[in-house]
């Protein structure tokens, strides 16, 4: 199933903080930051199990991350991805001439991809290198 008209916000989480200090290239960082947290009621509409890979797409790119249900809901219509390499594939790079990209508030669509492969941090970043 897919959902449109969501707002994506990137954020800090303590797990993402621990993982970035403990090993940015480890699988632990995938578990901490390659996730997208949904409002509980929104997640039902996706009709999939928690942990199912989902594709998050914005005007600026797309990325595969694992789905999860937010502990900090309700926040209907808003999804959260922790700051990091996965979130940065889909954020708005435009700084409106102030230097800071717009990391919060992108329009997003999501689609469950049960057979999708969520890449590790280095694998994902290496896709940005020219062949």
């Amino acid at each position: 199933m897919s959902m449109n008209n969501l707002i994506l916000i990137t954020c800090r989480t303590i797990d993402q903080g621990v993982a970035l200090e403990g090993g940015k290239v480890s699988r632990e960082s995938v578990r901490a930051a390659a996730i997208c947290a949904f409002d509980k009621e929104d997640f039902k509409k996706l009709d999939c199990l928690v942990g199912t890979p989902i594709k998050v797409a914005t005007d600026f790119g797309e990325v595969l991350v694992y789905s999860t249900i937010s502990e900090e809901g309700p926040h209907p219509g808003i999804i959260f991805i922790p700051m990091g390499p996965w979130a940065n594939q889909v954020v708005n790079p435009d700084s409106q001439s102030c230097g800071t990209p717009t990391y919060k508030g992108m329009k997003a669509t999501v689609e469950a991809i049960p057979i999708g492969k969520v890449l590790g941090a280095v694998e994902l970043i290496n896709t940005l290198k020219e062949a």
Partner: protein
Amino acid sequence: MVEKINTTTDVVCPFCGTLCDDLEVDVDIKENKVVEVRNGCQIGTKKFFASNPSDHRYEKPLIKDNGSFKEVSWDEALNKAADILVKAKRPLLYGFSSTECEAQGKGVELAEVLGAVLDNTASVCHGPSLLAIQDVGAPTSTLGEYKNRADLIVFWGCNPVHAHPRHLSRYSEFVRGYFRKDGRNDRFIIVVDPRNTHTAQIADLFVQINPSEDYELLNAIRAILRGTELDGKEVSGVQMENIIELVNKLKTCNFGVIFFGMGLTQSLSHHRNVDAAICLTRELNDYTKFLLTPMRGHYNVAGANQVFTWQTGYSYSIDFSKGYPRYNPGEFSSVDVLIRNEIDASLIVASDPASNFPAAAVKNMFKHPLISIEPHHTPTSVNADVILPPAIAGIECEGTAYRMDSVPIRLRKVKDAPGECLTDKEILERLVEVVKKKKGE
């Protein structure tokens, strides 16, 4: 055999801008390993343990040769790094917020010698706060004043339970102060955020706001404070009666403080949000005492702003290409120069822009030579051409760092750095010398 343990007390945690200075760290002297950390939060504790030798810690200088890294001497690595920087027409020096002030000063010197673009991580976090402060000033204070006096705390667009885990217990929420003897019970906590964060879940009042509509709500509060009656039933998703209740709370406290985070700086209105928050704080002083403080992320990003400012006149986004410092965020800020593909070599110090910058900027950074001064394997360092391994400041060497309220605190050393690691300051000092020699200076 009995382990010989050395305990260092009053250790300053080099993780976030709270700079907790009460940690106790046990080091196994024979193994030169951290074996116990007391008083630290989960993230700070992890940082101390991650300093131990591991398969993701660099201990020797490395140069990329045919796609794989080979160990080289310091002289060879510095020579290669200097070659890259001297040959570049428009090098970028970025990072600096997770190292100490003396290394930051050496970074400024290197940027001047090279005619480089110089930037720190404020560029992608609290840069808009600095812009707003330059526009309208900032009524602010040290964290100790808040601890002892504040009876109303607003967390706007920040979630310290996750990002600054001990802030609440040391300075803002649970802590007992000179005039707040009953700690949490003597304080009223307000959280403004689009979601019911863990910080909001332990607050007295949670104001759930629509994403990216902080500017509207801040200005509605200012208008009501001035006695204006607003049309409409809600602003930014908040009912009018709730905004009026919020205004009454703000103006009737004895001593209030707004702590604000990325919710204001990284959403659409950027520095205009912070500008409005500062103006609100100033106007609240017509009724009571009110101050505000940005929740700085990296432990010494405030120091990077201080050092860059006292040496160049500007706190971030600095261009030395004309031989003197020029400042223009949006033009000389790292993400913007990278997106315009202006940069033809990068030196990254104590940072991981491959993880933290938008993909469009990272793509262009990878098109050109990359040097990384970084203790650990990161998506940036594994893609570098030269890796210069440093001692971790605040764990393996001393130095000065500035807390989020711009109070300088001396970092402590608890153990030696592994392998051949040098301090960031030594690395940059030696790099400046090699670069100067190559440029014939």
